[in-house]
């Protein structure tokens, strides 16, 4: 079942079984933000420690399917210790990867998306392990699982910036 193998890549299953940066940080100094997928009940709780324009530390808690939980783990490993500007850029790149033009999914898909604007070409090779989640776009209903923690991160950074 090649589609399944593309979705459940080894890196994803590894992060699902052994999530990185698991847990919560004391609030304050950390900022806490929750993300919910009301359709399936998946939830993610992020603890963000921001200082000197950097995301010093991040912890991930919550529960959900292999895609939502591994995505949170992969994200935490990718953004931890990075300058906020880089983190924002990664959020943008990741979300673009998850909204990739339907036509690029292969000929067996109906496109019906002629009106959609092609996203700017982004270099997914810089995404490292995160690129493993690319297989998710072939399963549209699971995209929300993959973006859950990224949306929470985006919201959390906005909240930190506004305080």
């Amino acid at each position, binding site marked *: 079942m090649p589609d399944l193998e593309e979705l*459940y890549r080894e890196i994803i299953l590894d992060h699902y079984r052994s999530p990185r940066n698991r847990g919560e940080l004391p609030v304050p100094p950390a900022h806490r933000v929750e993300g919910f997928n009301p359709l399936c*009940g998946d939830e993610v709780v992020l603890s963000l420690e921001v200082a000197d324009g950097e995301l010093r530390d991040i912890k991930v808690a919550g529960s959900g399917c292999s895609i939502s939980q591994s995505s949170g783990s992969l994200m935490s490993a990718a953004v931890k210790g990075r300058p906020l500007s880089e983190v924002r850029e990664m959020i943008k790149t990741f979300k673009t990867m998850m909204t990739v033009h339907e036509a690029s999914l292969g000929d067996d898909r109906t496109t019906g998306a002629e009106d959609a604007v092609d996203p700017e070409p982004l270099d997914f090779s810089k995404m490292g392990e995160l690129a493993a989640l690319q297989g998710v776009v072939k399963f549209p209903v699971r995209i929300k699982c993959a973006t859950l923690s990224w949306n929470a991160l985006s919201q959390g950074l906005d909240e930190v910036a506004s305080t």
Partner: protein
Amino acid sequence: MAHAVSVKDPLDVEVLRKDFPLLARTVHDRPIVYLDSASSSLQPRQVLAAMEQYYETTHANVHRGVYATAEGATELYEGARRKVGRFIGAPDPKREIVFTKNATEALNLVANAWGRRHLKRGDAVVLTEMEHHSNLVPWLMLAEAIGIELRYLPVDADGRLELDGLERALEGARVLAVSAMSNVLGTINPVPTMAEAAHAHGAVVVVDGAQSVPHSVVDVKALGADFLAFSGHKMQGPTGIGVLWGRAELLEDMAPFLGGGGMILDVRLDRFTPAEIPWKFEAGTPPIAEAVGLAAAVDYLHGVGMERIVAHERLLTAYAIDALHERLGGDCRIYGPPAGGDRGGVLSIAYRDVHPHDLAQVLDQFGVCVRPGHHCAKPLMHRLGVNATARASVGLYNDEADIDTLIEGLSHVGTVFG
């Protein structure tokens, strides 16, 4: 539920399946295995044909025109009302059947049109922990609006209602609102007994029949209900139509629900007079084609025989529970009561500790349609201590081969998440 099940002549599923065009399609190069009827059922071609014929030959708005097709459409629509009423043993089908958008709207109609007229601050409404959000949120909204008190009957470890506290809960209660069958656990609740107790306390009994009406022999009098809500698309009918049955005297003494055309007797600039029941509750152009489709679905179910459907689904549910346990052993857990008289064909499954979304994703590759999620029953999920389950539910067109494919798919989950 009201009748004993005794069937000499079992369902010929192989023949019956040919009536359902969607069962002919493949998914990922495998025949579709449709195990999501609790969410929405499939339609036989007889239903589709009736709707198409209506649009091709008789379509017009109802209750207004005098030309032939308008009269024809009105007759079909009102005929559907009578047919649906007879299907559930309504004493006065012409006046007691209200067509709505779905069961959810029917329950909202009761909470609003009956609740707002008859309930006041502090009045108690008894619900259960296993209610679908559609029989929960309307009452929560009413609690927010007018301050009614909500009491909940708990669910025990087997997924049955704990009825020890029923009498106490009903003390001074004005409403008992309960699902006749759980959409998560398959539990068939003892509504007649509960209704009798509720009536002894002077409470009105609202029954959510979304799951029970398609899968049991329903007689509203035997059920003891004052209101019964259900959906067309869960009983081989189309989407977009639901039903509220209510005792005529209760419907008479209710505020209107939605305002607009069709629900009035007279309108002035400073006042209006609502129409008679049931039209009083049907503002705007109703779902006419859907009513025609629902009537065809009732004819179809009647032709097959509800007793035979119940017997078939009960046997298949018992087969599924046995086979899942036997072939998957401790890897598979099924929530809800064991097979038996109070067990409907809704199977909420956990497989090892694999998340239901991942289960459903793997099963999809086998063509198996099951539903992962909280099934619009989040309080029940909290009670079970889970975020979600994977739910397989049977319909009249399912057979043992469908269950075997479900188990084949579940076995494969182990190789992905081993």
